[in-house]
């Protein structure tokens, strides 16, 4: 069951505080407005920082709520493997999961005795419940682009590489340019292109 063109495109983002998840949803939203699309986005501030879980959503089209109902994400853009698994309420066979394969081990593993499952086990579970899993080492690609901080923009590039969001790359790049610090534009453009390329190959 794929989304009809008249239906909204639903993007769920998930990651860890400090990864720049919210910056990416605001860039996508800005690009949508630039392209004349209807869009609503939602995020949680405050406690989500300090190393906690960060979720945000972007819904493009005629929508009345920024929240994505059960199983209705077209894309789950997950910046961390366990956070991909934690956000799967919105995942179904209509969903492509784009996931950064680099784990960020929470402190609960060291001090509460919690277990971090093997990444390959997580991937297997994700493959079983979704349409497709696009696994990329976004952190490595960001380092290749010049700075690991650009991991989030690699992920955005990967989203664009999947051709789900009908927005021209130039519009998205313009939105990135407006939202990141001037001196970081060049690295982020490289990071974006590497993300697009990696996702197209998958």
């Amino acid at each position, binding site marked *: 069951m794929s989304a009809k063109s008249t239906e909204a495109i639903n993007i769920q983002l998930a990651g860890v505080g400090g990864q720049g998840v919210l910056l990416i*949803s605001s860039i996508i939203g800005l690009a*949508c407005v630039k392209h004349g699309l209807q*869009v609503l*986005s939602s995020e949680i*501030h*405050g406690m989500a920082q300090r190393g*906690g879980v960060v979720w945000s959503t972007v819904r493009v089209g005629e929508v*009345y709520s920024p929240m994505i109902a059960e199983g209705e994400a077209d894309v789950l853009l997950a910046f961390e493997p366990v956070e991909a698994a934690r956000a799967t309420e919105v995942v179904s066979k209509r969903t492509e999961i784009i996931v950064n394969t680099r784990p960020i*081990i929470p402190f609960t*593993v060291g001090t509460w005795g919690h277990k971090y499952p093997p990444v390959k086990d997580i991937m297997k579970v994700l493959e079983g419940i979704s349409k497709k899993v696009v696994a990329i080492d976004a952190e490595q690609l960001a380092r290749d682009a010049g700075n690991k901080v650009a991991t989030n923009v690699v992920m955005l590039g990967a989203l664009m590489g999947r051709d789900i969001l009908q927005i021209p790359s130039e519009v998205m790049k313009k939105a990135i340019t407006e939202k990141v610090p001037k001196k970081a534009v060049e690295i982020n453009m490289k990071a974006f292109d590497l993300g697009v390329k990696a996702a197209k190959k998958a």
Partner: protein
Amino acid sequence: MNEILSKEVGKRMFLLGNDAIVRGALEAGLDIATTYPGTPSSEIGNTFNVIAKEAGIYFEFSTNEKVALEVAAGAAISGQRAMTFFKHVGLNVASDPFMTLCYTGVKGGHVVIVADDPAVFSSQNEQDSRYYAMLSGAPMIEPIFPQECKDMVKGAFDISEQLAIPVLVRTTTRVNHVSGPVEFGDMRAPRGKVHFDKNPMTLVPVPLVSKQRHPVLLEKMRKAQELTETYPYTTVEGKKGRAKLGIITAGASYGYVKEAVNRLPYDVRIMRIGMVHPMPVKKLAEFMGTVDKVLVVEELEPYMEMWAKVAAKDAGLTQEIHGKDLLPRMWEFSRDIVTGAIMKVMGDKPPEAKKPLDLQLPARPATLCPGCPHRATYYACKVATKDEAIYSSDIGCYTLALLPPLKTADLFLCMGSSVGTAAGFSKATDQVVVGFVGDSTFFHSAIPGIINAVHNRHKFTYVILDNRTTAMTGHQPHPGTCKDGMGRNDAPSLDLEKVVRGLGVEWVRVVDPFDVKKTIETFKEALAHDGISIIISRRECALIEGAIKRGKDGTVPTYRVDKEKCKKCKRCLKMFACPALYVDEDGTVAINDLLCVGCGVCAQVCAFGSIEKVGGDGK
């Protein structure tokens, strides 16, 4: 120029609900804005902080919400347009002046934004502010989308001036923190300086005056009742003729209702309430008269449900009115929850919820950052008290220490409660009592409690965790810093030590929590003092730019665990628990160099000297 100040009518921007609120107030010709930061309203203040000077308005971070409301009220009573904003519990703090402000009334429009937090993403309770509107008599409106946040806030100033009463704007997290396109309107200029006209028989509510002001308030409420019946944001949608089901809703719930109804096969009419106080009872009755059954969809309390039932009774309607019998009275709604309730009313069985994943995931709660000074203070305290004290806590990042392994938060009730409850613990028990408060929270409301402790000879140790900012809500300034709401860097900053001594506290010490040995010794001395002893533990929040000392090459000092020396006792993890520490495969502790910021406290915590500095010239 900041884009939010653009004079271009029709300009479209992708704005956060909170920023749209700022734009709405600016378009209305706002003169003054006041706040104490609180999620989910905090970004309103952060944006004013950036643009106030350029916009030619006055903005301040007040010491607390009560003061914020009073400052704005003084301006509004004089004739300026004023806005005050805070989270739901902020209105608790400001409720005292707010109740009587509805008696005195205002001359210039005064809009009060109150941001509720269903699902308690970042609050201590889930209270429903709509009851404050009923309690005070003030009108209350509820926007849904960013565009409405702008437009309804703009209009709220006119309503406030028309009725000469403050107007409440209720939002929830899914209104404040939703972004969407916003089309700009024309911008009115601020009024600037006005002249205050004396009128004590209206403005000084001694019994003689307040007795006369109550009927005036009731008359304003009667006029508000007329307004709400024709308020343009209260709308009805659906086909003409009789419908099987009528849904009454407001705020973020409207979105869930609309999307659920669009996907269901039923004949449904929707009434969206834009002004929730006073409720448009006539319109409600009219609406309910055209449908067979009624379902009220609202998060938290059955407030509109109560009014729907009142309206139905008065109009002699007898149909089923559902609400909290089918929907939760807590947490946020979703389209799935609302779909289930609609299907139940229509006699169908809702689909079953998805099964959870067959995969155990490690929890990832928010925690104190690597390099956080609070963690070092807590460590020293636990060593000094042998971790046998009652920890009376308060509101800020430091409350995160309730989680194991730190567990240095045993109680808090509200902003500033730590000092009063510490006094209570010390009276009721023979246990050692240590209270913790942040610097911003100290200024907010701990001061009367300290005076009380001095005067009534309470005995406990009180720690002011002075990280030089209001960290949790996004690093807003406070009276102990030199920054202010206008973006100036030369504000008079209050010296905490002098303030505390001025309150009559005799035993006061200032420590740097990164000097672990000295901090432990200071705690021991403080605990031995007969009376209130205050430790000001001062060290900048690790997230403040420049707080982490970097070398010329931009690196921080790096630390490493010497695997030969590590005795695998895990004391550093159990007592200190920096997120950069973890247990390696061989059972020794290791340091994640991506997270470590080189504060060096763990090296002081290790009893075997196994953690050593290996590089980086940051120090």
